[in-house]
C-alpha cells in the first residue's frame, strides 16, 4: 500500500472543556491562550488539506456535556447554506470553508454553555473518540474499495476521567482493530494538565504518537513536525516515541486509578478491593 493511492483521513478531536482552558490560561509561568492554540491548529489543518486535494478531514469538539462535529458542518433545515460569493479572493475555498465552520460552531458552543456553576471539568473524550470512529468508518465504506489511511489527533488539556475508563479503552481497542492510529498532543504546564494515564496507552496500543507540549507558542512547529506525516510516511520519517508507558487501569467499582488491583477471572473486570461476588458478571468467588 502506498500513500499515493489511499485516501488520507485526519480526525481532530479538540478538548474544549472551558474549565480546563480557564485554569491553563491563568497559569502564571506559561499561560495557555485558547485563541492562539486554535489559530495554530487551523493552520495545521490547512496544511493537512494542502498536501493533497483529496485529503479528508473531520473536526470534533469534546465538550463538558456533549461531543459534536465542528467540521463537516451539521446543516439543519433552518440553516442557510453559506453564501459562496462571500469567500475572499485571497483564500483557498476549502481552507475558508473549514475555518469558517470550525470557528462558527465553536462560538455557538461557547455561547450556549451554561453558567460556570453547572459546568464540570470533565470532557467527553470517549464520546468524541467514538464519534470520530463512526465517521472514519462511514468514509471507509463510502470509498470502498479504495484503501483508507486514518488517524485521530487528540488535542488534550483536561485531566483524565477514570469514570470513562471502560468506554475509552473500548474505543482504543476498536481503533486498534481497524488500524486507526491515535495521536495525542497534550499541553503540560506547572498547574494544569497533570500526566495522563489513559492517553499514552491509546497511543501505545494503536501505534500513534504521544507528545507533551510545554508551551503553546511553538505548537504549530510540533504539529507540523510530528503530526502532519500520514500513517504511511511514519514508516519513512523518524518521529519521537514515548518509551515509558504507564499501563495503570481504573477500577470498575469506584473508578479510581489503581496500581495493584483484583481482576475477575471470568469477565476480566478490575476492582480495587476483594469481594465475594463479581459486581459485573455476578460470578461467585471463593467456593467453600
Amino acid at each position, binding site marked *: 500500500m502506498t500513500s499515493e493511492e489511499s485516501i488520507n483521513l485526519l480526525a481532530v478531536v479538540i478538548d474544549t472543556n472551558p474549565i480546563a482552558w480557564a485554569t491553563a490560561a491563568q497559569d502564571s509561568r506559561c499561560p495557555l491562550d485558547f485563541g492562539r492554540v486554535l489559530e495554530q491548529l487551523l493552520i495545521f489543518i490547512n496544511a493537512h488539506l*494542502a498536501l493533497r486535494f483529496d485529503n479528508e478531514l473531520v473536526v470534533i469538539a469534546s465538550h463538558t456535556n456533549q461531543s459534536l462535529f465542528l467540521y463537516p458542518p451539521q446543516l439543519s433545515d433552518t440553516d442557510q447554506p453559506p453564501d459562496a460569493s462571500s469567500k475572499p479572493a485571497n483564500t483557498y475555498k476549502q481552507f*475558508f470553508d473549514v475555518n469558517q465552520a470550525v470557528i462558527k460552531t465553536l462560538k455557538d458552543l461557547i455561547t450556549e454553555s451554561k453558567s460556570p456553576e453547572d459546568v464540570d471539568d470533565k470532557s467527553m473524550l470517549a464520546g468524541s473518540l467514538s464519534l470520530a470512529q463512526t465517521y472514519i468508518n462511514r468514509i471507509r465504506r463510502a470509498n470502498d474499495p479504495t484503501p483508507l489511511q486514518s488517524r485521530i489527533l487528540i488535542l488534550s488539556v483536561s485531566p483524565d476521567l477514570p469514570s470513562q475508563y471502560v468506554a475509552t479503552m473500548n474505543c482504543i481497542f476498536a481503533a486498534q482493530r481497524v488500524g486507526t492510529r491515535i495521536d495525542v498532543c497534550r499541553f503540560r504546564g506547572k498547574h494544569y494538565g497533570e500526566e495522563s494515564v489513559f492517553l499514552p496507552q491509546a497511543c501505545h496500543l494503536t501505534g500513534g504518537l504521544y507528545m507533551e507540549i510545554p508551551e503553546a507558542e511553538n505548537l504549530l512547529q510540533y504539529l507540523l513536525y510530528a503530526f502532519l506525516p500520514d500513517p504511511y510516511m511514519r514508516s519513512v520519517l*523518524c518521529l519521537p516515541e514515548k518509551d515509558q508507558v504507564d499501563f495503570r487501569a481504573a477500577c470498575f467499582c469506584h473508578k479510581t486509578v489503581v496500581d495493584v488491583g483484583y481482576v475477575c477471572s471470568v469477565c476480566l473486570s478490575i476492582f480495587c478491593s476483594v469481594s465475594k461476588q463479581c459486581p459485573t458478571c455476578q460470578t461467585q468467588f471463593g467456593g467453600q
Partner: protein
Amino acid sequence: MSDSLATVKNSIQEYLETLPKQTFDKLYTQPATCLAALRLLPPVAKQIVMRLLYTQRPVLKADVEAWCFQEHRSDLRDSLKKLAKMNICTETGSEHLQINRIFQENMHNALVGGGTHASFGKPADTQDKYEVDIPFLDRYASEAWEAVLHYLVGTPTEKRPKAVGRLLVASGLQEQDGRSGVTDDERTMITSKGFQFLLLDVNVQVWSLLLQYLELAERQLQMDIVEVLNFLFQVGSLELGQSYSIDPLTDTQKMVLEDLKWFGLFYQRKKKSSRFYPTRMATSLTSGSMIAARKPEEGHGYIIVETNYRIYAYTESPLQIAILSLFVSLQARFQNMVVGLITRDGVRDALAKGITADQIITYLTAHAHPEMRKQSPILPETVVDQIRLWEMERNRLRVSRAYMYNDFPDIQEYKQLSDYAEPFGAILWKNDKKRILVVTEEGHEQVKAFKKRKQAAKGIPGSGGHGRAQASPLPSR
C-alpha cells in the same frame, strides 16, 4: 487511473523543471501557484517543505538527512533534488538548506488566507441572471472537448475557432495539407502523432495540449509565461459551479481565457461577459482526478470484441466511429451500432501511422462493454496476441552499424578471427563458405587489434582488408 494520474503529474513537472530559476521566483509570488506546486511534489518532499516552512534560518543538511530512516535515505535525496529543481529549497553553502523566501511567504499566505494577491479567484459579486448549474457545465465541457477532437479527425463541422486550429498545428497533431498547395488555415490534416493522441486518456490529452499551449504562448503569442502558468494553477483551485469575476485578471490572462474557452475549460455566456465559470476540466487540472465530464461514456463502455476478430461498437458518435476506423475495417453501420472486423491490413495501417499495438489494446480495454468486463481477461487473448504479432511483424528488420571483414587469404585466418570474436557476441553474421565476417561496431576495435597482433606474429603484412560496411539492414535473429 493512477497511471494516467502519474503521467499527468510527470508531464507538468518535467515542463516546470525546464524553467529558469527567476521564473520560479515570479511564479511563487502567487499563493495559488505555491499550493499547486506543493501538491505536485513527492510525499517526502511535501513533509520537508512543511517542516521548513516556519524556519527562519538555514537548516543543517545533516539534520534533514537524519529525519529519515536509513533505508529511505534515497527517497529523501531524490526529494531534495526535486525541491532544488523546482527552486523551493536551495543549498546555501555546502552544509545548509534554505527554503525559498518567496515561496515561504506565499505558502504561508495560502495557509492563513492572508495577503492581497486574489490568486484564488474573485467570485463575481452579483447574482448571475443567466446562472448555469454543474450538469450544464459538464455537458458544455464535454461537447467542447469533443468538438476539438472532431476538428482533429477532420469531421466536417462548422468553422473552427482560430485558437484551436493554431494549437493543433503547433502541437504537431495536425499539419498543413501540403498537397492542395493552399496555405489557408482551414486545410489541415491529422498526423500520426494526432492519431496516437486520440487514443490517450482525456486527462493526459488535456494536459499535453495545455503544455503545448504554454510553449506556443511563450514563443508565438509573446505572452508572459508566468502569468499564463499562474492563471492555470489558479483555475485549479477554483470551485465548480461558481462564477468568477474577470476583472482581477491581467490582459494576458484574459487572452488565455479566451483561447482555452474553445477547449471547454471555461464557460462564458458572451464574449463581453464580465464573469466566467470554470468547468470540471479546469478545476481538476492540478488535482489530477479523472475529468468527470467524460465519465458517463467511459463508464458505459461500448465495444464488444469477439474471438473471431469481429467488433461491435454500440455508439452513434462520429468521433468514436472515426477513432475506431483507425484500426478496424468497418463493415456495417446501424442506428445505434457499428460492426467491424479487426484485420491485418487495418491494424498495419494504424501501425504505419505510428500507433502502437499497446495503444490499440488499451483503448479497446478502456472502452470495453460492461458485458465484456465480466470476463477475465477482458479482451479475447487470441485477438490481443494477434495484434501484438502484427506489430512484431513490422519489426522484423533491425538496422545496426557494422564492419565487414572479407578477402581472408585462407580458412585458418578466418577461423581464428571468427573463433575469437564469437564468444563475446561481436559477430552479427558470417558466411563460412565465402569467408565473410560482419562484426558489430563495439566489437570492431577489439577484433581489429587481435587481427593486427596475429599478423605481426606471423610477419605477414595485412592482406585481408576490411571495409567499412554501410549500415545495411541485417536479418535479425
